[in-house]
């Protein structure tokens, strides 16, 4: 296990390094400079600006200072908002996005697992039918469509919930529903199919024969095994939710990281784009790492240090 963790850790660092380098190369391939604007800048000012942002130095020096900035976690000042550093933007935006993301994944996990389990216990029954219809619809409807519908119906037409911003728990309900529906549907489907498989296994029969209560059999014996596939997709799902926050934050006018990111893309604000991408990627890769380790801990059948090649 220890060896596996070390190996995964090295992979994680390698991935982050690749992302960081890729981002750097890509950013410098963009034609045009961030100072290209409608009005022409005085050449002296431009030179000074470039000096301030170290754009006048050779690429490899820029690259090294960029790597250093990542290690020291200091992404420098934003180009379009000179009074703010990328760190400040991250510190302001990320907690909100994180809150939205975490609330979404919790809601999705809870409701998805419950829905999937009930559906599997009532296999081919009315509840099953309803849950699976919901699941397919949930996967098919893009979250920005759902978000717009929710605002239009619940917030504007019936005036039940506030439509925008992130100021109270009440404000969080609609964005979370909009973002969580897709993942909930995926988790429900996955839970259902793996529960159906697990429930036919001999050890469940055995548990029944022992006279254990149905609740105990489901929670302790069946779910524990059935949830392994859910753990596996948790990492990629998190990536989806994270990028989903970009759209949701835009629709609901939530001042999270997504808003700054989209802004920085349209403004060609290099430091912000690079900082956000690297930060988000590192965060995601780290989450994938955690999920992998958790998977090893949860499933005793999997020996993580097993030799490669046996698929």
């Amino acid at each position, binding site marked *: 296990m220890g060896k596996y963790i070390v190996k995964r850790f090295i992979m994680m660092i390698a991935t982050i390094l690749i992302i960081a380098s890729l981002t750097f190369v*890509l950013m410098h*391939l963009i034609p045009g400079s961030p100072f290209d604007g409608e009005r022409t800048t005085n050449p002296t000012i431009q030179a000074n600006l470039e000096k301030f942002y170290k754009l006048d130095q050779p690429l490899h020096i820029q690259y090294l200072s960029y790597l250093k900035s990542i290690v020291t976690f200091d992404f420098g000042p934003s180009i379009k908002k000179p009074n703010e550093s990328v760190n400040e933007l991250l510190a302001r935006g990320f907690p909100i996005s994180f809150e939205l993301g975490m609330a979404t994944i919790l809601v999705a996990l809870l409701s998805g697992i419950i829905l999937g389990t009930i559906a599997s216990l009532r296999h081919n029954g009315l509840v099953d039918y309803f849950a699976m219809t919901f699941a*397919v619809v949930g996967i098919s409807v893009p979250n*920005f*469509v759902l978000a717009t519908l929710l605002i239009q119906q619940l917030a504007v037409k019936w005036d039940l919930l506030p439509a925008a911003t992130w100021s109270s728990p009440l404000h969080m309900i609609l964005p979370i529903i909009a973002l969580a529906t897709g993942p909930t549907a995926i988790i429900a489907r996955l839970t259902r199919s793996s529960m159906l498989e697990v429930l036919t296994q001999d050890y469940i029969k055995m548990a029944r024969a022992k006279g254990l209560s149905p609740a105990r059999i489901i929670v302790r014996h069946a779910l524990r095994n059935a949830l392994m596939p859910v753990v596996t997709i948790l990492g990629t799902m998190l990536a989806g939710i994270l990028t989903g926050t970009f759209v949701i934050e835009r629709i609901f006018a939530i001042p999270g990281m997504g808003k700054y990111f989209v802004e920085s*893309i349209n403004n060609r604000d290099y430091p912000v784009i690079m900082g956000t991408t690297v930060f988000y990627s590192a965060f*995601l890769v780290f989450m994938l790492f955690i999920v992998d380790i958790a998977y090893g801990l949860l499933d005793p059948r999997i020996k993580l240090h097993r030799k*490669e*090649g046996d698929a």
Partner: protein
Amino acid sequence: MTNSQEVASPQHVKDEWFRPLPKGHVNAESVVRPSLSYWKDAWRRLRKNKLAMGGLIFLVLLMLFAIFGPIFSPYSVIATDYPNQNQSPSAAHWFGTDEAGRDVFTRTWYGARISIFVGVMAALIDFFIGIIYGGISGYKGGRTDSIMMRIVEVLYGLPHLLVVILLMVIMGASLTTIIVALTVTGWVGMARIVRGQVLQIKNYEFVTASKSFGAKSSRIIRKNLLPNTMGPIIVQMTLTVPSAIFAEAFLSFLGLGIAAPFASWGVMANDALPVILSGHWWRLFFPALFISLTMFAFNVLGDGLQDALDPKLRR
């Protein structure tokens, strides 16, 4: 659990069961039932799945409309017609018009072209890169495989949409960019599936037999391995298409999609956002409806194919 090996109870056993058949009565060598190839059998099972067939029929219709809809429509996709702006659906404009007076019906079908094109191209490119990379990795095995899979693992860890967004920023928003950006990260999943399948199948006896007859590697890959990995590959492709369509809509919605007068479903939904509260529901409703229906159709078709192409589920 079904009890397939139920044994007849003694009182049901009849003597005539044990009488020998007259000689020459049947030709024991002849195959009684028509032989079904893998694909015929899969098609037979897919046809029984109503939902999947519904999805398939919807997609065929959608493609027909995407091809012929804009041709037969009297309106242009990009030409503006300000006197008729913001009209609700009517006999003249079935899906209404947008703020520049463009016909939403025509634009929806034009958007279908773009969305389907992006989805299918992404799936095809993933397919080619995936089978080559995964095929080599799985077939060679050993060191080559470990190195190739390390690369895949690192790529798999990349947050796809972030990479796609970065690429879109750099290459500028266009259809080609979207497809390139989606395939740069997308082929990895396909390569993993192909490799897993090849790894499993290459040890089967028929491959050994082929080898012992002196077949070359390229022949074994083409004739033995790939045809047998086709099931999961096709399923993966049917699921790639909707995710590519979704990604395109997502990017367009962030303002990174194809440029203004042209339409994709994502662009139309994005344009509709500011006016949705002024009651112009048709602007969002139609593109959103077709994105959802298309995703739905591909998903149910993919599920159906998964069941139909899995030999283990054969009945």
